[in-house]
């Protein structure tokens, strides 16, 4: 039955498409874009089927090549994996559709390698999400990294140094992750996550285990851009071509956060096995710091994309905070935030790219009176802003709500305050954006404020459809938050805490 192979198909389908793309491109260049978007859509549908299967039949375990773990590689799809897989594939499918105009106009490099790398990126993210083996995760992580390094660098100019810095820091992160895996292997002789989770508790407290955990957390922390390891993100997201940022910004850090949660809960059995190490507290506080630092830095930015980049640093903090609190509501909130942030940040970066394409730049002043020229795009920005600030029924409210419940349940009133404070910071920087976009202001040359330069210049359809889809999605997820949490995320959160 084909559906039995779903865990493997999630990565294999985009991979095969990526391999076919250059060939198709050489024969018939016009096929590249539809092929890429089609592959993204198929992957999204497959991940939907996977989620449905997990909900009805429970956790899926897949032994690649028929070899039983721990001798063979195992793929595991549980509620969390399926949820994240659907989020990622959905966002990437939309980003592939969105990238069409940019690629056609030449700002994102030539179509074949761009879309091939984007599909390889999707395949590797899927591979990370279904991985049940620590080393397998590493190899997929590196494919994703290499693809994103190159995609960022394709922007030329300032993107080159940003990409180089990203390469250095990303390699350190992946290498630290590998060191952590090596120390775990030293202790147990196995790489399989389920096997490790059974063997590690028998070892008790061990310095090698402590070091392994340290390397794993720091390594994945770099990949998810958790403060203070976030140095690569602002430049990379700001200077990469808009189509690239739209592709990688919604999902890169989320998949790394997923990997962190997976390692902490399914392998290490936190918080129980990490007796004596206040790791989860450190994580929660790092998350809190990220919320504040990212938010404050975002307010100070005058470039839209840089503002959104720092906002991403801030929002990753919420996820880390939820993981660190490690109780059911906090984890449910953190995982829901994976979806919400992917959607709202995706929506905002899509809008930023549309602005850059139509209005010529990404400074905040370029947004001047965009509500007249690009009304639909502006409306989408407003919806995303509501979600960022945390105003119901936009989805962002609900993930913050669960996080708040989790923080209070754990007795961390200060962290609860940080969550609320983060919402206020988000209000500040989103208002800054909306002010430029909607309120009339004289521009630098002192033109009268109600003259809007040029006429209607709404984003092209290929950009507009994903924008609108995400805006609708943000509200839909908000409205349906309760069933999403009770049906999927509650189980995902529980899985790690046994």
């Amino acid at each position, binding site marked *: 039955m084909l559906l039995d192979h779903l865990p493997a198909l999630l990565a294999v389908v985009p991979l095969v498409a990526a391999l076919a793309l250059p060939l198709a491109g050489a024969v018939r260049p016009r096929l590249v874009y539809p092929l890429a978007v089609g592959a993204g859509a198929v992957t999204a549908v497959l991940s939907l089927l996977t989620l449905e299967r997990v909900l009805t039949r429970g956790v899926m375990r897949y032994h690649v090549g028929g070899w039983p773990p721990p001798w063979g590689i195992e793929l595991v799809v549980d509620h969390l994996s399926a949820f994240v897989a659907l989020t990622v594939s959905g966002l990437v499918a939309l980003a592939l559709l969105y990238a069409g105009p940019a690629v056609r106009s030449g700002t994102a490099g030539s179509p074949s390698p761009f879309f091939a790398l984007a599909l390889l990126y999707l395949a590797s993210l899927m591979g990370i999400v279904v991985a049940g083996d620590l080393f397998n995760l590493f190899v*997929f992580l590196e494919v994703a990294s290499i693809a994103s390094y*190159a*995609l960022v660098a394709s922007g030329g100019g300032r993107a080159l140094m940003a990409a180089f810095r990203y390469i250095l820091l990303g390699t350190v992160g992946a290498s630290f992750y590998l060191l952590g895996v090596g120390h775990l292997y*030293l202790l147990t002789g196995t790489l399989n996550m389920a096997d490790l989770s059974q063997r590690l508790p028998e070892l008790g407290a061990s310095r090698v285990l402590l070091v*392994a955990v340290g390397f794993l957390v720091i390594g994945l922390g770099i990949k998810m851009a958790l403060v203070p390891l976030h140095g690569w993100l602002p430049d990379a997201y700001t200077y990469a071509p808009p189509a690239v940022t739209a592709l990688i910004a919604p999902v890169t850090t989320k998949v790394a956060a997923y990997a962190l949660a997976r390692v902490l809960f399914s392998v290490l059995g936190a918080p129980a096995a990490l007796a004596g190490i206040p790791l989860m507290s450190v994580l929660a506080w790092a998350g809190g710091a990220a919320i504040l630092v990212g938010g404050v830095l975002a307010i100070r930015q005058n470039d839209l994309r840089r503002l959104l980049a720092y906002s991403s640093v801030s929002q990753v903090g919420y996820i880390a905070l939820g993981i660190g609190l490690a109780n059911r509501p906090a984890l449910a909130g953190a995982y829901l935030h994976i979806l919400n942030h992917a959607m709202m940040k995706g929506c905002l970066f899509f809008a930023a790219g549309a602005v850059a394409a139509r209005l010529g730049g990404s400074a905040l002043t370029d947004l001047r009176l965009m509500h007249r020229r690009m009304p639909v795009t502006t409306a989408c920005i407003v919806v995303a802003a509501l979600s960022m600030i945390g105003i119901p029924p936009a989805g962002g409210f609900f993930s913050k709500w669960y996080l708040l419940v989790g923080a209070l349940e754990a007795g961390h009133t200060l962290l609860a305050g940080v969550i609320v404070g983060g919402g206020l910071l988000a209000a500040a920087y989103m208002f800054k954006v909306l002010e430029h976009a909607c309120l009339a202001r004289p521009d630098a040359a002192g033109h009268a404020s109600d003259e809007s330069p040029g006429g209607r210049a709404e984003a092209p359809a290929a950009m507009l459809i994903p924008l609108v889809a995400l805006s609708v999605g943000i509200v839909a997820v908000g409205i349906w938050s309760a069933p999403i949490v009770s049906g999927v995320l509650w189980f995902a959160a529980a899985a790690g805490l046994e």
Partner: protein
Amino acid sequence: MSEVLNALFLALLVILAGAAVRVRDLVGAVLILSAYGLTMSLVWAGMGAVDVAFTEAVVGAGASTVFFLATLLRTLPREQPRERRARPATLVGVLLLGGLLLLAIHEFPAWSDPASPASLHVSPRYLRDGYRETGAPNIVTAVLADYRAYDTLIETVVIFTAGVACWLLLPRRDP
């Protein structure tokens, strides 16, 4: 005797690595790195990891050097690298890394102990049943091409991705 040789090679490795980093001429540094790669592969061969050793000799010492030299020949940098400056964050990072590594070493099982967990779990089956189950006398091949073939597939995808990345980044014609 082989212990002494082992120790000498390891010391040589550290010296070559330090030299590669400190030498100011970039071509010279790359060639020292090549020597480092070759010495590294000798160390690994001495440890019995022959597959890894010849892969490193080809890829690490060979291909990497070619890539570096190709980069240098295309760019012909004129100036020599200047002295570096150490920021406090760097020292923190180095201390953290060193500290974590040394902390772990303290509790390692004795070197090359046949009863270490890594020798007792998972790998015995590869050795015992590998030839019978996969048909490959070289058990490393059995692991790579059969038991963990998925990893090898993705490893080739890595190369493909890097290739496509270079295709995206480097124009065929110099501007």
